[in-house]
């Protein structure tokens, strides 16, 4: 009896686990921030467009979720189980229930890549870039207006190359994608052979060297010892901030707002500073970079009477954004922080 009861109790959560994952819930949790609740797009591409779902087979969607787009925001969802990915694909497919999924087919198409290169330069390069790097920046509002629904995808991205079959690229070129700047090449008068030649060239773009790699592991904090008093160190930082073309926004005890005025710890100060041109540029590259804003350097008096100057390490933080262009800005910020803190503690 006791055993039966125990098995029954253990089986209750099992029943939930064995039930089919809820694709709508998973999409809302993992995808909606970028792609919108109904797949209408935002920072991420719109997924509900009829022309997209007419050409995107389930293998393309599955591989995209699994591999992501290294360096282009879309993360790889390796922690999701197969049934969960399948449920998300099912939800995406259901955004346009009247449109059947095209068959998944990894058979390559035959074409002439050299001829395809000429056609690519003429028809694709303006949006997708000479090397297939795609459009710059992301994020509705900051780097593009709301009536421009997509950034042209990076065709040389290893995630795209792994996810897209030749047939998928071919279908996309022939159909185009209404609601985006991507035209139908069939309607533009290109032949099926022309399209196959472009497909072969797009495949070559994926083999070009120089693909993005996540930044190397970095320590979370940049830290210096200051030989000066806390007040002098704060003054030095304010001067160095200005010397580096930034402006001090405010200086305040670290506990400001957490404790009543006057009760904050006297040995902890934060110097907030900004260069709005730089901030605007960073937001254009990735609107999620608020975690860096405004720039801040903390000055602490330690128990042994020493003074430490520290900041978050932008190179440490940049890894989480999966954004190649932002990495460059984070390198710049890293050097800036070092420059200011070195100058202030010399």
């Amino acid at each position, binding site marked *: 009896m006791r*055993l039966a009861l*125990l*098995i029954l109790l*253990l*089986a209750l959560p*099992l029943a939930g*686990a*064995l039930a089919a994952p809820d694709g709508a819930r998973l999409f*809302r*949790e993992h995808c*909606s*921030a*970028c792609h*919108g*609740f109904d797949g209408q797009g*935002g*920072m991420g591409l719109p997924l509900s467009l009829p022309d997209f779902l007419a050409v995107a087979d389930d293998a393309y969607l599955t591989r995209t979720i699994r591999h992501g787009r290294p360096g282009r925001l879309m*993360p790889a969802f390796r*922690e*999701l*189980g197969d049934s*969960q990915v399948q449920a998300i694909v099912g939800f995406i497919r259901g955004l346009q229930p009247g449109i059947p999924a095209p068959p998944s087919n990894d058979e390559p198409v035959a074409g002439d890549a050299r001829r395809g290169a000429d056609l690519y330069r003429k028809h694709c390069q303006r949006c997708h870039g000479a090397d297939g790097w795609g459009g710059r920046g992301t994020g*509705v*509002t*900051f780097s593009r207006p709301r009536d421009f629904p997509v950034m042209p995808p990076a065709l040389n991205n290893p995630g795209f190359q792994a996810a897209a079959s030749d047939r998928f690229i071919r279908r996309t070129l022939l159909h185009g994608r209404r609601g985006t700047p991507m035209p139908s090449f069939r309607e533009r008068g290109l032949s099926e052979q022309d399209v196959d030649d472009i497909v072969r060239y797009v495949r070559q773009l994926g083999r070009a060297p120089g693909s993005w790699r996540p930044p190397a592991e970095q*320590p*979370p*904090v940049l*830290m210096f010892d200051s030989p000066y008093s806390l007040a002098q160190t704060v003054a030095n930082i304010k001067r160095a901030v200005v010397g580096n073309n930034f402006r001090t926004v405010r200086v305040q005890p*670290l*506990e*400001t*707002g*957490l*404790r009543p005025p006057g009760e904050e710890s006297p040995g*902890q100060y934060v110097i907030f500073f*900004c260069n*709005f*041109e730089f*901030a*605007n540029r960073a*937001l254009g590259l990735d*609107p*999620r*970079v*608020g*975690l860096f*804003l*405004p720039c*801040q*350097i*903390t000055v*602490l008096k330690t*128990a042994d009477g020493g003074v*430490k100057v*520290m*900041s*978050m390490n932008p190179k440490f933080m940049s890894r*989480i*954004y999966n954004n190649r262009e932002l990495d460059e800005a984070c390198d710049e910020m890293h050097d800036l922080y070092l420059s200011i803190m070195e100058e202030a503690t010399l």
Partner: protein
Amino acid sequence: MSHWQTLPFVLFLLLAALGRPVLADDLLMARAPHPFPEAMLDLQTAIAEHGYHVSHVQRVDVGLGRSGFKTDKYRIVFFGKADEVRELLQRHPALAPYLPLKITLFAEADDTLLTTFDPTMLTRLAPQDADFILRLKRWKNDLRSIFHEMREGD
């Protein structure tokens, strides 16, 4: 074979069927189905309900606008627990650049997006301090709970 001898096997099958847990990304994100002003109020309420105190709101959009840049609503909410911040900084001063905690929120048409980072990324600042690691995990759970509430419009 008695019932109790078969129990480990049954348990193994049950646990295996539960599958792997879903792990959060280092960058936590959520879309709130509300316009910015409402989402801002909801966020501050959710932060307070989780036992934190909002210490400051940085109006990034105002600063950008004054400098001539066009932008939609963009704010950063700083928050924390006063005693916890003081106590942790005494033990681990290197945590200071990441305190108070912050959540970024910005408008995207009729929705509002929220982002923050997973605090357990900072485990390496004191990997031997079990209590510190537990605090980071609690923060992460609270952030995920706040984001869940914001996403579901609770």
